[in-house]
């Protein structure tokens, strides 16, 4: 499903089903930050994590896209992208 674009080329994607506005070239994690979402996953140990290094090195901001983990700080958002929170380990069978 492709969302209608805004005048500035903005679009929406979803994070755990919640619509989030993105701009072409913007990383998923940045769009989440702008939307006020700073916690993007829960670790296997049960603690909340968000973006930390901001340049693809630390992997703290990983999210699930198409059932694989991606770094939300370096992976671009796109119209209609379905992004979900990781809770614990990466489930390849989910």
């Amino acid at each position: 499903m492709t969302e209608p674009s805004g005048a500035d080329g903005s679009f929406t994607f979803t994070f755990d089903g919640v619509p989030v506005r993105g701009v072409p070239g913007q990383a998923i994690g940045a769009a989440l930050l702008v939307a006020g979402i700073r916690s993007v996953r829960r670790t296997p140990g049960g603690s909340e994590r968000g973006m930390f290094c901001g340049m693809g090195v630390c992997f703290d901001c990983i999210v699930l896209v198409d059932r694989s983990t991606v770094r939300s700080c370096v992976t671009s958002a796109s119209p209609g992208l379905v992004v979900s929170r990781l809770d614990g380990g990466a489930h390849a069978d989910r």
Partner: protein
Amino acid sequence: MVVIGAGIIGACCALELARAGRSVVVVDRGAIASGTTRSGEGNLLVSDKLPGPELDLAVASNVMWQQLADELATDFELEHKGGLVVARSEADAVALRALGLQQQAAGIRCEPLQPDQLRSFEPELTADAVLGMSYPDDAQVQPMRACAAILRAAAERGVDIRLHAAVQDLRRDTTGAISGVVTSNGTIATACAVNATGPWANELAALAGSSIPVAPRRGFVLVTEPAAALIRHKVYSTSYVDDVGSDEAGARLSPVVEGTRAGTILIGSSRERIGFDRTVDMAIVRRMAAEAMALFPALGRLNIIRVYGGFRPASADHLPLIGWDTRVEGLLHATGHEGAGIGLAPATGQLVAALVAGVSPVVDPAPFAPARFATVAA
């Protein structure tokens, strides 16, 4: 007594010698478990062994591993995860069934699983599995923690552990017998040295003018990102058993896949005789990935975060060398366990202690005696 090598074999030898009342010094050129022990997955397997002396040693060891887990103060994550061997062709299934029958005759518990049973036993397993053989007694430990726990127990019994002390020479008296171990950190006088240096054992033997047929056999392990509860057992293909026994110098690959407590999935296995070159060969890594995916298609979506190599101490006939050197009095070898050293370590330690004391060990030592390679009289 000086035990050379602070890996799992050296640790078990030191503990058993200390229990037998010996005064023991352990030396290592690096930190604890800085060689083969650190690179291993910590397998305690019965499934990959044919009836014979190695299986006897493994069975004796597994009993001792449980005792160690009960006795030692440090948790080393002993887990009876169980093994599953998978046949993907009718021919392999016939061979696997035959292997299972032989093993059952030797007292090993195993149970054949048909495809419909496999789906609940290991849900992500490939649909083209023809037959599985389940081995409930296959187990695992965290090898570093196990080694550290055993060394700590040894130290509590008075064993002196000297790390970052490289052995530079084995001193011998006028009769040619061992009289001391020269290290970068001083010389230790002793009439008995235990060679527990794994794949470097022949280099150590050479310091005393001896030689043993032990050489490194390289293996790589691929480590995935953490993936909760995707794979339940240690799962491998029937080809693994053949590979262990092969004598090829070139790379032999067979898929071995298992989940760990940390959530990561470990993927093996490769075997190459290529010396001590640690450089990762991506062509082999790619083949290992393809083989693992053939066993578990769902693995494809997971990322590999790390690949590392290690060196198995491989003997010429795939059996460990445990016993006195045929040429040098006072030199006792405990090496050549190839990829099974963690599993075989406790019984190896017991065997070594019994040989030193001159009493009879839990298993027959004869098949492991280095003398089997001494074709020419020394």
